[in-house]
């Protein structure tokens, strides 16, 4: 019997396997940021251990960093201490760091791919659940906790039980104006937040193959939101073209050897998945969340559901609590939900393609009078590229705020937070209670929906906007 893609990548990294024990997996790339690493470095010091492979480790500052005045010391002393702790740890243990102010600084999951460090067939971990993003390149990539961060620092390996395998096949093509974000939000509402639990998922089918690398990263990024261990996509020409020429990509004979291997990273025709799901992309529409977990979503054209729409008692209670928290009434058309703040950014949708798409909708239009639009590039490189293309001018002309790079309002560890009761349309990945600020209410949306919502002030898609004159 053949092997699935994830089984091939897994098997290539097994250092040690014994009956009744989890496998010991080698880790090709370990990414670090300031929030989940300090206690791990402390653990190394206490045990008098070193970082085994600093040459396979990379750190950046992203969660706490301000997106205004980023050239000044961080105002919040606690955030500043955490960032300074990372700097000291990287200096003490010889780890490469891209700090605030560095041209390669940014969200860890934007930085890895743009440096060309994220490549097919790798194992990649980070103390961050959205590490699944890197699966877009055909890598096994997943988030770990701080104890595991310490384990990888000390040993460059992880003990991991082999997950089950699942295929999500998305047939057909996405209609115009429907994006990778809509696809993955549709999937999560279909499966629920626990549907992927215990599985490494391979996304496949025509709609997946037709996605750009940015789109594939958006899909894989949200694998964790339906509970999957990891999500990955077989590498193809789109993948190779994206990597070629990146600063850390292989060159010359190394490139040829790498591509020859990467081309073997496909699920064999006779391989069997433990579970399969099929979806039809051609029927998908702009999709938004109404509740307080990413599985509580609906097409933009729908109305806010009622607890009575659900059969399971847990779902009824969860819906009731969500509507109460979100300040929504069942039956309200989602298009009539008024939004205070729109956030474009994050490791889900903060890449250059996302900013180009947002700018194409905002060009010649104005952000609604009582709505705030925050555009936060995923990395300094993305910011500089956007500015080179004049996108910043489009955003500023529309009335948006153009900011520096970081995680920003996705989780509000820096000053970019919602006020209690404030409602956002956000291109990020989590609509949990208080995620974007205590009492804040989040609707997860695609980039086009975010841009159109900023213009109309209520949840909208570009199709709802009047055509521009001329």
């Amino acid at each position, binding site marked *: 019997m053949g092997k699935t893609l994830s089984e091939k990548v897994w098997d290539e990294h097994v250092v040690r396997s014994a009956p009744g024990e989890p496998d010991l997996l080698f880790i090709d790339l370990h990414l670090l940021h300031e929030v989940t690493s300090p206690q791990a470095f402390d653990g190394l010091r206490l045990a008098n251990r070193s970082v085994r492979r600093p040459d396979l480790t990379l750190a950046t500052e992203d969660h706490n960093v301000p997106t205004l005045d980023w050239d000044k010391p961080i105002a919040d002393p606690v955030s500043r*201490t955490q960032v300074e702790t990372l700097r000291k740890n990287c200096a003490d243990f010889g780890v490469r760091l891209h700090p605030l102010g560095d041209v390669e600084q940014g969200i860890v999951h934007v930085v890895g791919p743009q440096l060309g460090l994220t490549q097919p067939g790798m194992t990649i971990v980070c103390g961050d659940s959205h590490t699944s993003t890197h699966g877009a390149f055909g890598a096994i990539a997943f988030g770990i906790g701080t104890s595991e961060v310490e384990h990888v620092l000390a040993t460059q*390996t992880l003990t991991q039980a082999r997950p089950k395998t699942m295929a999500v096949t998305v047939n057909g093509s996405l209609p115009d104006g429907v994006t990778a974000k809509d696809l993955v939000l549709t999937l999560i509402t279909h499966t629920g937040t626990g549907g992927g639990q215990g599985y490494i998922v391979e996304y496949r089918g025509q709609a997946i193959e037709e996605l750009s690398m940015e789109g594939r990263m958006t899909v894989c990024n949200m694998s964790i939101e339906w509970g999957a261990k990891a999500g990955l996509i077989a590498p193809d020409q789109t993948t190779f073209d994206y990597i070629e020429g990146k600063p850390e990509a292989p060159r010359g004979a190394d490139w040829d050897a790498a591509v020859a291997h990467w081309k073997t990273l496909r699920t064999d025709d006779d391989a069997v998945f433990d579970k399969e799901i099929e979806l039809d992309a051609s029927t998908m529409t702009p999709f938004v969340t109404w509740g307080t*977990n990413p599985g509580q979503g609906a097409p933009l054209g729908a109305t806010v559901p009622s607890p009575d729409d659900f059969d399971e008692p847990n779902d009824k209670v969860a819906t009731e609590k969500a509507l109460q928290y979100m300040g929504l009434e069942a039956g309200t058309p989602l298009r009539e939900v008024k939004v205070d703040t729109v956030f474009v950014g994050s490791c889900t949708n903060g890449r250059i393609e996302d900013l180009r798409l947002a700018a194409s909708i905002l060009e010649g239009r104005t952000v609604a009078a009582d709505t705030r639009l925050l555009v936060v590039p995923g990395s300094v490189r993305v910011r500089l590229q956007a500015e080179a293309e004049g996108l910043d001018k489009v955003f500023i002309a529309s009335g948006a705020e153009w900011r520096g790079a970081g995680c920003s309002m996705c989780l509000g560890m820096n000053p970019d937070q919602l006020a209690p009761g404030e409602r956002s349309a956000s291109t990020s990945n989590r609509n949990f209670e208080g995620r974007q600020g205590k009492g804040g209410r989040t609707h997860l949306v695609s980039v086009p929906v975010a841009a159109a919502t900023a213009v109309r002030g209520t949840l909208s898609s570009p199709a709802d906007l009047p055509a521009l004159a001329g």
Partner: protein
Amino acid sequence: MDKFTTHTGVGVPLKRSNVDTDQIIPAVYLKRVTRTGFEDGLFAAWRNDPDFVLNNPVYAGGSVLVAGPDFGTGSSREHAVWALQNYGFQAVISSRFADIFRGNSGKAGLLAAQVDEKVVQRLWDWLEDNPGGEITVDLESRTVRAGVGEGAVEDSFDIDDYTRWRLLEGLDDIGITLSHDADITSFEAGRPSWKPVTA
């Protein structure tokens, strides 16, 4: 890590599904650089509500949390486990845990006991009849118990063999792995030269 064999303590019913790690500890509480002191952030938003279960004096000193399905979803923050432990919890019982949370619990020494959904409901019912009652989680026999006689609850829970063994023995994961150093070195020698490096 301390050995975990069995624990008996006040059971706390948390009648919610999808308790994500942002609820367990919001991001603004993650800025410490230590492993202690996170109890202030535990369920910080919900604790503002006087009716929240942890604000009920009956559950003061609670150490066994009984929660709805999909506990610990979302962020990989191990701070969620530390916050529960710092507050005094030794075990969480749920019908389904998110992978990363369960992994973090096993590493940090918090017992994540997975039971059938019906068992969660029976424990909730039992706690309603016996507020402040104690629940036992016995890792050696993999059982949860509450009460005696009529209405008592006793059932098995799931935990993988390897995590159970590590918790029972109180073993340090890194120490175990370093005993396989020769395997790691030999694996490293066989890696292709074109694999990327950061240095």
